[in-house]
């Protein structure tokens, strides 16, 4: 480990590895650190990811794909099932990954591009001089090192401290986090061609239960519930999950346990400052309605890697520069999407089971192959007029879509 780099990336998840790979490919001197001794482990993810978008960032390799899913089944509280086939739900149906292998592959790609990778190396603080982030204090095997960098990229996940050290408040309120538990189950012979989702206030308040096939009859069965709907004297995610398992898969064997917190806050006020950018879960870029974060993290990682190159080439790593080349582009793309999802989330978490059921009934017979946002809104209108009012901001997008299609 040297004491000076162009770019220091903290955290080797999908966001950090893509940022490191992108910056290294541009010829920058990059250090990518991971506090765990093994990249990709322990997993804190349901591992589902949309196909088309994934291909933008990485060549698909069978060794980290567990299942190729063609449809999603959504179960309403009263048992009504909505089937969404691949063509329409696009981003939501796709692959189920083996994150342990996937994350490692991305870090290896960063290394191949020329980045130095250090595991079991944790940042314990930032070096800040003249109001600029100039590097970080790292700890590796109990020894401390001061490592300087022109730009620091914080990709340190839901438990991010990098932003806070630089004065960016990234703390999440209970309503801004889905608290999750998941089992990898074997021996239940799960169908491998589709994902399943269960919604309802009894089963998963403010969230959902998922079943994602994991290859060879196995599946990730997990639950996310909204932080504001759990607590000291209420059931925990793990309690809800055990209840579901007892009912649905009483004989399954649990071969892995996963826990996690997923940011569902929508875009936060600030994700960069002088000499620093935050990406992925550290920047709270996961989707507030699905909880999916891998693709947004990779998109942000790529943007940040390119921004690091542009800023360092221009000799200007100020907040104003980074705002122009990183903040604005991600807010116009990922940011817009997650803010729209936040509108849906805020509406969804207040729906009663009766509302959810009536919604499901009106959607059940919609021909999803030809569904546009407008069709969806029409179906919603029939089902629940208040819901439509709550979602009125989405109209602007629907209108834009109509205009775009006509042009």
């Amino acid at each position, binding site marked *: 480990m040297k004491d000076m780099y162009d770019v220091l990336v903290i955290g080797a998840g999908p966001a950090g590895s893509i940022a490191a790979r992108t910056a290294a490919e541009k010829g920058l001197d990059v250090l990518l650190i991971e506090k*765990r001794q093994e990249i990709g482990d322990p997993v804190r993810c349901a591992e589902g990811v949309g196909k088309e978008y994934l291909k933008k960032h990485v060549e698909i390799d069978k060794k980290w794909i567990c299942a190729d899913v063609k449809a999603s089944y959504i179960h309403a509280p009263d048992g009504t099932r909505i089937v969404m086939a691949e063509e329409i739900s696009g981003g939501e149906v796709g692959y189920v990954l083996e994150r342990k292998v996937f994350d490692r592959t991305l870090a290896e790609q960063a290394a191949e591009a020329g980045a130095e990778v250090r595991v079991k190396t944790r940042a314990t603080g930032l070096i800040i001089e003249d109001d600029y982030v100039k590097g970080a204090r790292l700890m590796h095997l109990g020894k401390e090192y001061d490592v300087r960098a022109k730009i620091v990229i914080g990709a340190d996940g839901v438990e991010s401290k990098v932003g806070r050290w630089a004065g960016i408040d990234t703390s999440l309120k209970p309503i801004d986090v889905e608290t999750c538990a998941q089992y990898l189950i074997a021996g239940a012979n799960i169908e491998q061609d589709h994902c399943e989702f269960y919604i309802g206030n009894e089963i998963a308040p403010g969230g959902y239960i998922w079943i994602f096939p994991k290859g060879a009859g196995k599946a990730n069965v997990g639950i996310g519930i909204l932080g504001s709907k759990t607590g000291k004297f209420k059931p925990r995610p*793990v309690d809800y999950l055990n209840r579901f398992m007892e009912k649905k898969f009483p004989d399954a064997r649990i071969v892995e346990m996963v826990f996690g917190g997923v940011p569902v806050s929508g875009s936060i006020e600030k994700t960069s400052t002088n000499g620093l950018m935050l990406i992925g879960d550290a920047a709270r870029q996961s989707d507030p309605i699905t909880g999916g974060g891998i693709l947004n993290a990779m998109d942000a990682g790529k943007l940040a890697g390119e921004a690091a190159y542009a800023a360092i080439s221009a000799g200007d790593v100020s907040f104003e520069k980074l705002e122009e080349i990183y903040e604005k582009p991600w807010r116009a793309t990922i940011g817009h999407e997650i803010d729209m999802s936040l509108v849906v989330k805020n509406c969804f978490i207040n729906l009663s089971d009766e509302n959810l059921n009536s919604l499901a009934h009106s959607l059940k017979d919609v021909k999803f192959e030809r569904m546009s946002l407008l069709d969806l809104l029409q179906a919603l209108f029939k089902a629940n007029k208040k819901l439509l009012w709550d979602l009125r901001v989405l109209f602007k997008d629907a209108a834009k879509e109509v205009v775009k299609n006509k042009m």
Partner: protein
Amino acid sequence: MQERGYLLIEYHNLRLRVTGELVSIQINKYKCGYCGACVGVCPKGALELVETWVEVDGNTCISCGICDRICPVGAIEVIK
């Protein structure tokens, strides 16, 4: 009696505040799934997920209990 009181203090890592109020945060490392959700919600940045354990900075923690509230397994106990 005195000895029992001492043991309790040891177990709960009790801290005496300037106000004279006893507060404590106890993380059960045998229960913790080291996911870091608690670290993300801590308003003061008093928690840190090291590798497979969570550390508490007793000087920064305000015993607000948010970490306790959102823990997926209930591994955190905050006593006010």
